[in-house]
């Protein structure tokens, strides 16, 4: 096996809406095994779209027009739909943004969690049950018996997200897509959840594509980072390098706009007009270059 083969390798991925507007503009991005890659950008930049593209759940209106996605070397675009589903199901998992709607309201937590291990991965019932309890313990759920019998609406937001984190790690995926997993939670719970994800990630050595709009979170959890603007990766580097010396003007503007944790009185400044104007022409130029070969 090739030790340097990326866990996830996205090469020049473009996607369009029915009206022809591009939501993803030749996105290239890779996640090495065991590594956390942050994907940061403002709301609407296309972060969720990239996650959905990887997991094979793009909305029907969004069409991929260019690019390859390789999951552990397997080209997802070349697989039959059935084989692709199986591969994605076995090797990936999602930690979603909204833990309430990500759980089925009419099924108890226990069967909902074990079901996937038993039905999809063919585990025995007792083995799946033991595994789920082990992970509930790892996400610091102290009363697993009660939680397993609950319906999702009987749990707090933080507890739901713990359950979903446990479920995501349960089948030992190689890659987890975490789509703003703390955004919907109370501020006090956010840090605990972030710590849990980081801890489980280290223990299991899982690669994570961590979607966030928060540079503070990027600094805490990731080793690599891609900065996304309007569906285009404008900067891509090691996290430490990004904070030490941001290269792209948009990254610098984003940093200036982010209040520091150390300075609670820092106000949220909007991104500079000049920077946005520069970005607009950069993206227009990229689209022009793209249209030529694609019509």
């Amino acid at each position, binding site marked *: 096996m090739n030790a340097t083969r990326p866990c996830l390798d996205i090469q020049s991925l473009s996607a369009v809406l029915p009206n022809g507007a591009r939501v993803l503009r030749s996105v290239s991005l890779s996640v090495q095994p065991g590594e956390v890659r942050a994907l940061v950008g403002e709301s609407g930049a296309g972060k969720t779209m990239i996650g959905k593209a990887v997991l094979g759940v793009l909305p029907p209106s969004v069409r991929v027009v260019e690019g390859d996605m390789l999951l552990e070397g397997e080209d997802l675009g070349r697989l039959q739909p059935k084989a692709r589903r199986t591969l994605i199901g076995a090797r990936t998992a999602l930690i979603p943004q909204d833990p309430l*709607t990500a759980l089925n309201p009419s099924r108890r937590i226990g069967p909902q969690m074990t079901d*996937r291990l038993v039905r999809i991965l063919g585990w025995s019932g007792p083995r799946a049950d033991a595994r789920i309890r082990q992970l509930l313990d790892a996400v610091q759920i102290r009363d697993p018996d009660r939680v397993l019998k609950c319906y999702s609406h009987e749990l707090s937001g933080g507890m739901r997200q713990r359950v979903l984190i446990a479920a995501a790690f349960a089948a030992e995926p190689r890659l987890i897509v975490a789509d703003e997993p703390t955004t919907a939670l109370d501020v006090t719970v956010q840090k605990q959840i972030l710590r849990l994800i980081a801890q489980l990630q280290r223990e299991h050595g899982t690669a994570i594509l961590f979607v966030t709009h928060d540079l503070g979170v990027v600094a805490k959890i990731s080793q690599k980072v891609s900065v996304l603007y309007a569906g285009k990766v404008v900067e891509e580097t090691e996290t430490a390098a990004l904070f030490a010396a941001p290269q792209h003007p948009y990254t610098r503007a984003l940093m200036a706009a982010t209040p520091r944790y150390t300075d609670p009185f820092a106000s949220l400044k909007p991104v500079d007009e000049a920077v946005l104007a520069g970005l607009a022409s950069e993206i227009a130029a990229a689209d022009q270059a793209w249209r030529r070969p694609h019509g």
Partner: protein
Amino acid sequence: MDEGRISRHGSGARLWLAGGWLLLASLAAIFAPLIAPQNPLAQDLMFERLPPFWMSGAEPGFWLGTDSLGRDLLSRLIFGARIALIVAFAAALAACLIGSTLGLIAGYFGGWADRIISRIVDVWMAFPPVLFAILLVAVLGTGLSSVIIAIAVIDWTRFCRVIRAETMGQARMDYVENARIAGYGRIGIMLREVLPNVVPSIVALLSLEMGIAVIVEAILSFVNLSISTDDPTWGGIIAEGRLSIHQAWWVLVFPLVTLILTVLSFSQFGEGLKARFDPVLR
């Protein structure tokens, strides 16, 4: 939270009242020969138009009085419950099965399946239902099974429309996407993940439809298009009662009250069950 508790108490009371009446009606229907004080078909001109028990001139054993042929009204209502409830259960179940299945498919798969099913529903609903029923029974011939088939054929669209809309809402939820990512097949997701979430609505609609079936059966009996005229039906009794309203009001009023109570109970029972079944409302 407080609001939830109040509404839950309200739904509890109406669930028990409605359920109690429906249980009573069902028991009466099942054990009609044992319970009915008289033979519902026995005519006796000596006893014609006896008033109910509390009025002067009443006879013991004829609790709700008799009709113009001297037949015992209570016994006729009890036997009438048989046909009313058989039609209610059979017709509503058939309509539910057809409508919910198509609604689930249209709502979950969308696209062509949805377009075709929705178009059929639109065309179907363009017919006025009562006229449609009379037409169908005229074609199928009178009789219990024709009435059941007519109601199912007409009313499956109620289930289809509601279940389609609910399924669409559920299909957009993240848990469905999660199941896709995990590798479940589409039909498996539809049946195991989505269906349980629309079951409360199916149950509520089913109960409501039973009430509607009772009314439709009564209307068909009223216009003499239902079962053979010998068997007592609520609609048939009402039709007879209408003719003698000035001499014997009870022959019209008691079956009407019975009919209304039953129909209301079905709809309230369904709403109550839905509130109880729904894990989010519970």
